């Protein structure tokens, strides 16, 4: 770019001219790292000076580059450090509520365990599970659900007091760590928390209520964080199952119960393949005549070591684990087969109904209707002979899939019956809109009827209401002749209960059919 200027060949410098040695000095300084060095330029401005000028410029350039580089490194390091801190914080924080998360709780708990002094109380963990939070999400939407969680987190922090660590473990589960706490203090804290949750939660123009189950565990000296959390969780689990006591402190027997439950679930899984289930049948009679109108099939479990296990002791577990679907299908198939075996003995007018219980989760299964249709076809039974009993609770909480299943079953010609009627929170008008034909009134409504006149009138009103809705009523849990008479006087048609007969074997039902005698019969040896 620049043309060669006519240059003077470098002559040897005169001895007084020490510029070359100055250049060497300068170069040495630069080499040793002193980039700020400046070699002086003489007035001659000749080639030697040009070299000197060039060296000065280069040193300046290098200096600039280094400075810029160092600044960039510093700024990057700063950014990295900030990002690291942010990430650490994020790793310890629940993004929705801003309180701690499981990791932060674990860390705080481990620290509290380590800080424990001999002979002094140690940390306590309170685990909280919100009741019915799923309903809040389902009915108000997830955005509202999130707002509820944020509000609850705030209340927990306020109720737990200073020094405590509050964390959201996920979903609707929260934990509170009290670094040093006695039993009383823990219980006190739990009650404060329960109270704070009892106040309604107001979101814009929506009100929400939610309660909770709380499990408490006070750390033993030899327990680590995981062991403590497990025990608190077990206590919370026990609290959830207890309708009356929502706050529970851990007891070792809870662990055993939980293990037993898991073992039972494993065994239940094998029950159908191993043929350990069997059915008993409870007669349903016409109140007026005592005539056998049909039976309700009830499942029992012939457990290999525990003997006969009644449905209350394994059906809830089956519903929780989803095993109910397989069990329900076994029951339906077996009961229909049994119906066919009774066929020769059944009254010619075809008014014998087989009642089978259906669980809520079975209704959620899209294959249900096909299965029922197929089972009926296989045994050759008519749909009208089958009545499926569904609990009031299951019908109330059902959604679109359940409604579809019900209507399809109705279209099939199968009878549908509300079971345990009177135990839910149904409104009167909804009764008419349900796709059911009959209502089985829960035993609790008639249990005091004989002694309580008001109750008697109440039952009569319920019966009338059912009839007015265009349905038939069946009363279960009839245990005395008095109850049977009272119901009959009311105009009730059908009943079921120990007064008429306990649940009995298929063979004994066959006997009843053969004899054609009305119920109740005189007590027989079992």
């Amino acid at each position: 770019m620049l043309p060669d200027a006519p240059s003077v060949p470098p002559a040897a410098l005169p001895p007084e001219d020490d510029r070359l040695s100055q250049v060497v000095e300068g170069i040495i300084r630069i080499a040793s790292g002193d980039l700020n060095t400046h070699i002086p330029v003489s007035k001659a401005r000749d080639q030697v000076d040009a070299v000197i000028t060039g060296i000065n410029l280069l040193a300046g350039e290098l200096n600039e580059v280094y400075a810029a580089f160092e600044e960039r490194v510093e700024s990057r390091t700063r950014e990295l450090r900030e990002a690291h801190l942010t990430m650490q914080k994020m790793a310890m924080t629940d993004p929705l509520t801003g309180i701690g998360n499981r990791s932060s709780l674990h860390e705080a708990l481990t620290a509290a365990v380590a800080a424990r002094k001999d002979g002094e109380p140690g940390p306590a963990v309170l685990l909280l599970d919100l009741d019915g939070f799923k309903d809040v999400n389902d009915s108000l939407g997830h955005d509202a659900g999130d707002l509820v969680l944020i509000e609850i987190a705030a209340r927990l922090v306020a109720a737990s007091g200073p020094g405590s660590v509050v964390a959201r473990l996920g979903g609707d589960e929260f934990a509170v760590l009290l670094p040093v706490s006695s039993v009383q203090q823990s219980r006190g804290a739990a009650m404060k928390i329960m109270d704070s949750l009892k106040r309604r939660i107001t979101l814009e123009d929506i009100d929400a209520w939610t309660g909770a189950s709380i499990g408490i565990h006070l750390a033993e000296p030899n327990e680590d964080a995981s062991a403590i959390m497990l025990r608190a969780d077990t206590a919370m689990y026990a609290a959830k199952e207890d309708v009356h006591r929502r706050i529970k402190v851990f007891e070792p027997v809870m662990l055993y119960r939980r293990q037993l439950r898991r073992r039972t679930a494993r065994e239940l899984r094998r029950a159908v393949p191993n043929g350990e289930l069997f059915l008993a049948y409870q007669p349903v009679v016409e109140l007026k005549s005592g005539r056998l109108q049909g039976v309700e099939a009830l499942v029992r479990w012939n457990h290999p070591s525990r003997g006969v296990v009644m449905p209350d002791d394994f059906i809830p577990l089956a519903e929780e684990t989803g095993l109910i679907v397989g069990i329900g299908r076994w029951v339906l198939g077996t009961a229909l087969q049994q119906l066919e075996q009774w066929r020769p003995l059944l009254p010619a007018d075809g008014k014998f109904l087989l009642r089978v219980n259906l669980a809520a989760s079975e209704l959620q299964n899209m294959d249900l209707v096909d299965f029922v249709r197929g089972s009926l076809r296989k045994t050759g039974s008519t749909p009208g002979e089958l009545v499926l009993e569904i609990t009031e609770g299951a019908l109330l909480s059902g959604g679109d899939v359940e409604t579809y299943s019900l209507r399809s079953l109705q279209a099939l010609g199968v009878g549908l019956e509300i079971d345990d009627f009177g135990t839910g929170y149904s409104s009167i008008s909804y009764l008419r809109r349900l796709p059911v034909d009959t209502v089985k009134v829960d035993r609790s409504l008639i249990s005091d009827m004989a002694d309580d006149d008001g109750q008697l009138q109440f039952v009569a009103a319920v019966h009338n209401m059912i009839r007015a809705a265009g349905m038939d009523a069946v009363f279960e849990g009839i245990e005395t002749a008095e109850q049977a008479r009272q119901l009959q006087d009311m105009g009730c048609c059908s009943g079921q209960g120990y007064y008429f007969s306990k649940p009995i074997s298929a063979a004994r039902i066959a006997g009843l059919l053969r004899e054609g005698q009305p119920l109740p019969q005189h007590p027989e040896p079992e």
Partner: protein
Amino acid sequence: MDVSMAPEGHVLLILPPGETVTGPMAAAAHDEVARLAGSEKLPMLLVLTGVEAVTRHARSVFSNARSLAAVAVVGVTPVDRVIANFLLGGAVQPCPTRYFSNEQDALEWLQRKNVA
């Protein structure tokens, strides 16, 4: 710094001998050149004979100059040549540039650039 219009129609910029040309000094000179040029681009004769040094900041001001059609840089000694090389060696050239060790050649070159 001395900025003026030569009768031939180019800008004449004489950098102060013995001094270091800083960024602010360069910016002031640039503003003056821009004022003289208006919306046009003018050729410039830049004399840096005897200048002590030119800073990087001044170099970047030069690189970003907008009012220049061509620049002829004039120096005398080898030191002037090194400094001129530094000035014109920035990342961006605002226009055609060239170094001359005598003013006469510089002016002739500028005239040719002006005509073009």
